[in-house]
């Protein structure tokens, strides 16, 4: 379910009492409703579904995940799997804690 894509906020304006953003999806620009992410700022990335920004995209976390994949099989055996530790601790931890740990590892 739920085709959603990451885009970068170019502009923000109020329209008819609704907070709207112009969002760039790699050269494709659409108007997006910001009501659910009122503190999103120009330059940030967001996940957009049917014209709504539903979640801020955490760039740092994305980089860390990619770094994890790069290092897969190289580092893991050495340092153990920080994801696993995080999962065992439940999903109530810090926003991108596990990934940060793993990236640090």
């Amino acid at each position: 379910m739920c085709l959603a894509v990451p885009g970068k906020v170019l502009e923000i304006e109020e329209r008819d009492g609704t907070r709207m953003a112009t969002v760039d999806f790699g050269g494709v620009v659409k108007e997006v409703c910001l009501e659910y992410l009122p503190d999103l700022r120009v330059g940030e990335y967001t996940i957009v579904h049917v014209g709504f920004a539903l979640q801020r995209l955490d760039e740092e976390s994305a980089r860390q995940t990619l770094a994890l994949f790069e290092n897969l099989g190289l580092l893991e055996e050495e340092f153990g799997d920080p994801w696993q530790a995080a999962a065992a601790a439940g999903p109530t931890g810090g926003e991108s804690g596990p990934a940060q740990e793993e990236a640090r590892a």
Partner: protein
Amino acid sequence: MKYLEEFQNPDLAVRLLDDIRATVTRPWALMEVCGGQTHSIIRHGIDQLLPEQIELIHGPGCPVCVTPLEVIDKALEIASRPDVVFCSFGDMLRVPGSGRDLFRVRAAGGDVRVVYSPLDALRLAREHPDKEVVFFGIGFETTAPPNAMAVHQAARLGIRNFSMLVSHVRVPPAIEAIMQSPDCRVDAFLAAGHVCSVMGTGEYPELAERFEVPIVVTGFEPLDILEGVRRAVRMLERGEPGVENAYPRAVRPEGNPAARAMLADVFEVTDRAWRGIGTIPGSGWRLAERYREFDAEHRFSVAGIDTREPAECRSGEVLQGLLKPHQCEAFGTTCTPRTPLGATMVSSEGACAAYYLYRRLGGTPATVEATPVG
């Protein structure tokens, strides 16, 4: 697109696959809950790359596939009215009700329009004050907040000629129902990343614990899915069920609080029938009493609908992973994407349609290579 292409990198896929191969020791059945994930898996041929021991079961996570026949028949009836402009996401237009679909309603003169966003439907209502504009509000927790916003705005702006036919569904009760099925074959779940972007991950620990099943919140790009599989397999092999978030760039534990607040305002939890599966307690949302005037079922009397689901269609079992599509007698004979009997044959991420395409290669199994080509 940034943060999309990076997660389609085939070189990194090799590393993930290597890791999975190194980990897996025996057969596991993983269900990806979400139709978007199914789509990605088929599109990129990911299932073919996985070790033989890993079976991916396509879950009931296509909102188009699970919308109950009765609701579709109501949609068809409302859309047929001369004063109605009926708006829908594109996916729904080909889904058959009892004998026809929205395309045929349009062909017969109904004003049926494809919109990209529920706000487009609201705009149409403002532009056509002489018409009743009805939006077909389907979808999981991801789509519910946008639809809720359209209703909220209609109320705020006093747009009285707007209403919504609501058939929202919720994922956790569906996972629960699948696990409770006596024939359940699912060893682990790849949970739907974008549902969790809204709802967070708080609903899953209880389920993981109760059914002793790994649940991995998973994204949609090939690397995201491989990472979800990798995490699930690792948890299975270690015998340590629980919840992991493999999509942290888009999913926070608390989800989106503003969206959840709006959902709580506009909707209320209800029992909901899932097409082919039956009613799952507490698995849906309907409009809350105070938004009743925007409820299309309330505004248009669409009672007494006589639904006719083809008896031979076994999509319910398919949706629960109890039956492979080709085990259905109708599969490929009376039921094809061109002439679907069930919703799972309609939508391109429906399990039956996916199998149909794949199996058209005939007896010759597709060559599966782990190394990227081209």
